[in-house]
């Protein structure tokens, strides 16, 4: 038993090493970083973080990202819920084809869509807005949300619906007061996935924004190229991008394994 637990421990150590290095770098001064190797910060400093929290062009990057990620999560889940219900409960003309077509959008390389997306959202006057990024990320998040929710809904016996209708529930009332609470784990997991893929994506988010809605990812690349040696600042900004994900993952920790199986075990 002892020997077996060595594998996960080694794996987690491997996962943590680059993260540790990023965090350690963020507490070092630029001088210390450039002067050579040190395993721990010798002159511990919070200056890098101070820059980020006092400069609006930095901290607005985080606010912008959080705004469009939240918008995207709300939109994706609210349109995916009825669709997933339809796929899990009914047969209708073209249902299988439609489901497969939805999934193919998950396979489209973002690089293929970058330029057409720019033109599309410019032509409808949404370029450089939060809603543009939120809508663009729907391309891959809605199919995923439908897929996950459908998996969870399939596990709910149909008798639940029928009993409720016999008891005189209307569809909307049944859906909100009975069905949603039954699959709330699924909704949580789907929301988690939407948050995750919208938060980590950066090619489209960067293409669709310039100033007003610029995501933190784009702010970071600008800093990296203009002031090439601001490694400490870059590390601090990177460290801060890990925190929202870590918070969100803490909330779904008990459902995460089932969630990654998309409700299909």
């Amino acid at each position: 038993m002892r020997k077996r637990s060595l594998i996960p421990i080694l794996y987690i150590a491997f996962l943590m090493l680059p993260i540790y290095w990023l965090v350690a770098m963020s507490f070092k001064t630029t001088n210390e970083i450039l002067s050579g190797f040190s395993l721990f910060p010798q002159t511990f400093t919070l200056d890098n973080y101070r820059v980020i929290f006092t400069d609006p062009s930095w901290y607005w990057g985080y606010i912008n990202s959080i705004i469009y990620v939240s918008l995207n999560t709300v939109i994706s889940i609210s349109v995916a819920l009825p669709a997933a219900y339809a796929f899990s409960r009914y047969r209708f003309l073209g249902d299988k084809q439609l489901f497969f077509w939805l999934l193919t959008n998950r396979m489209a390389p973002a690089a293929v869509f970058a330029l057409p997306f720019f033109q599309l959202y410019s032509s409808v006057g949404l370029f450089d807005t939060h809603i543009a990024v939120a809508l663009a990320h729907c391309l891959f998040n809605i199919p995923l949300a439908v897929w996950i929710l459908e998996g969870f809904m399939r596990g709910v016996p149909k008798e639940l619906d029928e009993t409720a209708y016999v008891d005189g529930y209307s569809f909307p009332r049944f859906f909100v007061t009975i069905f949603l609470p039954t699959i709330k784990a699924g909704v949580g997991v789907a929301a988690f996935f939407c948050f995750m893929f919208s938060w980590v994506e950066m090619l489209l988010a960067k293409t669709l924004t310039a100033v007003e809605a610029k995501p933190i990812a784009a702010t970071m690349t600008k800093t990296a190229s203009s002031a090439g040696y601001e490694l400490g600042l870059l590390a601090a900004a990177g460290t801060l991008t890990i925190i929202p994900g870590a918070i969100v993952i803490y909330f779904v920790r008990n459902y995460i394994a089932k969630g990654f199986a998309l409700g299909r075990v």
Partner: protein
Amino acid sequence: MKTEYQKAWFFVLPVLFLVAFNALVPIMTVVNYSVQETFGNNVFFWQGLDWFEQILRSDRFQAALGRQFLFTFLILIIEVPLGIIIALSMPRKGFWVPVCLVTMALPMLIPWNVVGSMWNIFTLPKIGLLGYFLNDVLGINYDMTQQPISAWVTIIVMDVWHWTSLVVLLSYAGLVSIPDAYYQAAKIDGASPWKVFRYIQLPKMKTVLTIAILLRFMDSFNIYTEPFVLTGGGPGNSTTLLSIDLVKIALGQFDLGPAAAMSLIYFAITLLVSWLFYTLMTKDDAQ
């Protein structure tokens, strides 16, 4: 059994509308560009299928495609078995389960460009932990900006770091769904660990492994941000994968026609291979 109900279409309309807006308009734009030539000022000339022919014959595209297949092949052959081994050795109950799951999922929640920057900082010679360790402690000559082999090893290790957890979490979800009775029966029959794996655990993991392999294929085949931030496709063109090459042509040189033709070929290959994987892996279920 599901009931037939055509009005269910109304439930899918919002999804259909949103996804179609995002998928159909851009893909038609791409199709439009792929058959025309432009010299600017919005003047277009019919080009037919010339761009497709040109792309398919070009050495540059073939080389990028070859690198892309090599990358994806290495990723699948490393991450899938490694993920299964880790999932098999994880605890099934107790305090350590959520700790393992949360720490393992963490890399997947880091923005992709930060993953690139993080590995850049990690591997810098003299300054980075790994770069220092390899060069100055072990005496291995390692420099990602000079040697293609170092660059390749680094992007592979980075992807293993980033995505193996997906395979682990999926396999783990399959494993915990196996009832204890199965293991007890195997014990009574005196089955070897290999037999337990082959006849109990693997069949139970089949569905989730299908999802894992499909997702890993799609995402590694479409990868852009992480290797771009880390190596920029270099040194030379040695790590210029398909997406990186595509963005170079489309946004760097602004050759819209060839870029559009390449996009469609690229998308078609992804769809075709995903479909092949899917049919092969679900073939037994149909019988």
